[in-house]
Structure formats: C-alpha cells, structure tokens
C-alpha cells in the first residue's frame, strides 16, 4: 500500500462527507426547476446542518441510552460505507476488509439501529415509520443482493473494487443482464433513500411518511447527524451505482496525482447527471400507496433475477 493509496482513501471519505449535502441540494434544485418553482440554494442543506449543530438538544424523558447512541451508529456506518465504495480509486486500503455483501450488511445494521431508536420513545408515528422502513428494507435487500450478484458473476468477485476494475477494463458492450440489474438498482435506490414513488422527502406532515416519521423525535445535533447520514446514504447508493454500471473515470491500479485529477471531475460530472436524473424520475412519478410498495420492490427483484438468469444463459 503506497502513500497515494492512503491519500485516496482519506480523500474519498472526506469528499463523501463534504459532497453528500451538495448532492441533495442539487437534486432539490433540479426538482424545483422541473416543477417551475424558484430553486432553493445549493448550500441550503449545509446551512441546515450548521443550524442544527448549534441548537440545544431536547430528548424525550423516557428515551433510553439507545436513543442517544443511534445517530452516531447510523452516521458511523454510513461513513464506513463511504470508505469501502470505490468512488474515485480502486486501490483502497480499507476495501480488503469488506466486500459488497458486507456493505449490504452495514446498511442493514444502520437500518436496525434507526428503527429501534424510532420505536424507543414509543410514539405512534415512530413505530409506524419503523415498521414501514422494515417492510421496505426486507423487500429491497434481496433485490440489491441480486443486483450485486449479477455484477459479481460477470467479474467473478464480490469485492466492489475488483468488480469496478473488471467492468472498467472490459470493452463497451451491450449486456442485457447488466441492463436489467441497472433498472432494478434504480428502483432499489428510490425505495431505500425514501425518494418519491415510495416516500415523500419534502414533507413531514403526511400519514404515509416513512423516513421522516422515524426521525420526528430527534432534534439538534442528533437530528443533524441523522439527516447527514441520510444524505450520505443517498451519496453511497449513487456511488455504488457508478461502481457497478458506470465505472468510467475511476482511477484503476496504482494511481498518482494524475489519476485523481481525472477521477474527481469525472465523479462530479456523474453526480450532477445522477442528481438531475433522479429529479426527473421524482417529478414524473407520483407517490404510491404504501400497500403498493411490495409490488414496486417485487418488480425490482424480478428485474434483478431476470438479469441474473439472462446473464447465465446468454453470457456464458
């Protein structure tokens, strides 16, 4: 492991932390433009976080210690996840410790703590949101794993950097299996990050809310960490998508400063495109009833399994 590898590793986490709120801000901006509204500032999420960090935390009387530590655990898992996703370089010192399946497990751990904390205080909304989050999670996780398995089959490894290196080196080909799993991945991304067809991120006054219902009891720095973790989760998911389906621009092999000079603008361009794309999806689709979510995620699972089958049959 050379020094530049460590620098890339540190840089990757720092960029994830710094760019995650900007990604959300950019998404909200695009959405506002598409809906003919005046766009909020790109820096609004940062100002929000700063405001929340400066406030005094209020915690419910009957909250257990779990309620206090949950934001740190959730935020920590997301930072760790950002460390093992190859968003800029593939030779990262941390990635040998965890492959893609462990990454899914990390997301699951964050989810468990979040739902436990939501049920901890015992309000109706928290429990409601936690139950729905668990329903979404248990339907989305198999689909996500299937998507990862398709990419793993192609590159015969479950380690994300190896997958990325393999796909980036292979010539540009039409792969129906990979295309199907890309569709499945987008559906999972929307569901997991509480985006529009599944959950409405713009309001916390709706009976059908999922994510907002879980963080209703939090305030000040705890809320800030929760929000930041949610933004990081979106950033991480988008970066997993890049690693699996758009691996161009990522520095492979041992990289010098030149590789990073290419990787950073490439990442920025891809993030901007992804944010605009997500905003478009959210604008053209309507929020669906909670009871339709299993069907939505069932479709994602179907796409992923079809991708797997098609790849096994055709791509031998």
């Amino acid at each position: 492991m050379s020094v530049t590898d460590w620098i890339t590793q540190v840089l990757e986490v720092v960029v994830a932390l710094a760019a995650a709120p900007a990604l959300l801000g950019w998404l909200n901006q695009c959405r506002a433009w598409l809906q003919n509204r005046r766009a909020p500032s790109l820096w609004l999420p940062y100002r929000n976080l700063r405001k929340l960090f400066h406030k005094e935390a209020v915690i419910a009387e009957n909250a257990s210690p779990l309620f206090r530590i949950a934001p740190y655990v959730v935020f920590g898992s997301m930072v760790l996840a950002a460390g093992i996703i190859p968003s800029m370089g593939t030779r990262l010192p941390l990635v040998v410790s965890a492959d893609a399946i462990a990454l899914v497990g990390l997301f699951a751990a964050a989810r468990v703590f979040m739902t436990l904390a939501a049920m901890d205080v015992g309000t109706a909304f928290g429990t409601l949101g936690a139950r729905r989050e668990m329903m979404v999670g248990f339907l989305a996780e198999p689909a996500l794993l299937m998507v990862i398995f398709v990419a793993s089959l192609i590159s015969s490894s479950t380690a994300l950097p190896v997958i990325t290196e393999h796909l980036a080196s292979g010539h540009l080909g039409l792969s129906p299996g990979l295309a199907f799993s890309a569709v499945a991945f987008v559906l999972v991304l929307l569901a997991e990050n509480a985006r529009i067809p599944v959950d409405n991120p713009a309001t916390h006054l709706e009976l059908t809310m999922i994510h907002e219902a879980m963080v209703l009891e939090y305030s000040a720095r705890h809320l800030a960490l929760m929000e930041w973790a949610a933004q990081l989760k979106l950033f991480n998911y988008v970066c997993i998508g890049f690693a699996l389906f758009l691996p161009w621009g990522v520095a492979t092999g041992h990289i010098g400063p030149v590789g990073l000079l290419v990787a950073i603008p490439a990442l920025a361009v891809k993030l901007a495109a992804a944010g605009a794309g997500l905003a478009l999806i959210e604008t053209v689709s309507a929020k669906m009833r909670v009871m339709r979510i299993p069907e939505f995620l069932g479709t994602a699972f179907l796409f992923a399994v079809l991708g797997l089958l098609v790849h096994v049959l055709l791509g031998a």
Partner: protein
Amino acid sequence: MTHLPLYQQLLDTCAALLLLLSFAMLSQRRVVTLVNLYAVQGAVLAAATLLLAWRTGEGHLYLSAALTLALKVAFLPWLLHRLIRRLEVYWDTEPLLNVSGTMLVGLVIVVFAFALAQPITLLASTATRSAVGIAVSVVLLAFLMMITRRKAMSQVIGFLSMENGVFFGAMSASYGMPMVVELGVALDVLVAVLVLGVFFFQIRERFESLDLHHLEALKEHD
C-alpha cells in the same frame, strides 16, 4: 466481459427484451395494454429475424420478418383492438393468482425452461443457440398466462404470444422453419384469431360475459 460481436449482442438484447415483455404481459391486467405489448413483442421478434437474416444471408428469413411485421405488429393488434372496442372488454378480472405470486411462479418457470433447453443448446450449431432457453420460457410464460386468466380475450393473447415463442425458438435453434411451414403457421394463427373473434360474440351472447368460468359447468342448473 466476453468479447461478442455486435450482432450477437443485439440478438441477445432482443432475446432479453422478449423475455421481459412476456413478464410484462403476465403482470398486465388492462386488455388494451396487453394487445400493445403483444404488438411490441412482434416488433422485437421482427427485428431479431431481420438481424439474423442480414447476418446469415438466408433469403426466406427476410420474408418471414416481413410477414411477422405485417401480421403480428399491424394486422392482428388492429383486429384485436377492434374486437375490444366492439365487445367493450377493457379489463380482465382479478387473475386466479395475484400478480406477485404469478411473477414468482414465472421465475421458477424460466429456470425450468433454461434447464429444459440445455440439451437443445448443446445440439444446435447456430450462432443464436443460447437463446433457445429464452424461447422456451416465452412459450411457457404465455402458457402460464393462459392458465391464470379468466377472460377469453387475455387467453387468446396468451395463445398468440405462445406462437411468438415457438417462432423465436425455431429461429434460434435452426434459423427458422421451412417457408411452407412458416406460411402455414401464419395462416393458422390468422384463422384462429378470426374464428375466436366469432367465438367471443357467441360466448357473450350466451352468457353476457367473456368470463370463461361460465363454460366450466356442464349443466345450466344443478
């Protein structure tokens, strides 16, 4: 990634699209959309045939591509749309199995079809032999659709989609059937749809509905 020639990648994509459309038809309950999906399936089939004809230089494949385009993309969907308007059947009733259940059964069927097609794949010498499994799954999925639907209209579309699968299977296993057989099958399908169209009116006249479970009872009053 394996380095496949471009036409092979395009053919694989067509095959994958056919499979996807089969699943879309399986999940669709609006009869009008079902007919449109059938037309799209025909178009993908015609594109695959054309690609194969260009690749192999076999003249009769051009002809069958044209036949597919005329019959399955233009004429039959038009006929079915007209029937739907005249009969006023826009929705199928709730299928016997719910949508997610049908999908899961469909996935199992695809695995089964792939296993079934393995020996054929090994025997065939065509460039498209790997698509035989997909053709078999299209046939079986159409069969599943016919089993799970109640309305006569959806069953007929299932039947037509099954014929698409057979056609694609023949094409990928041996570059298409002889022209005489192909023409015969095309004529058969045409006549079948025309006759079934007459049947629809008769069934509705008798039972005032196109729900086929009325046909399951042997006597009117038990």
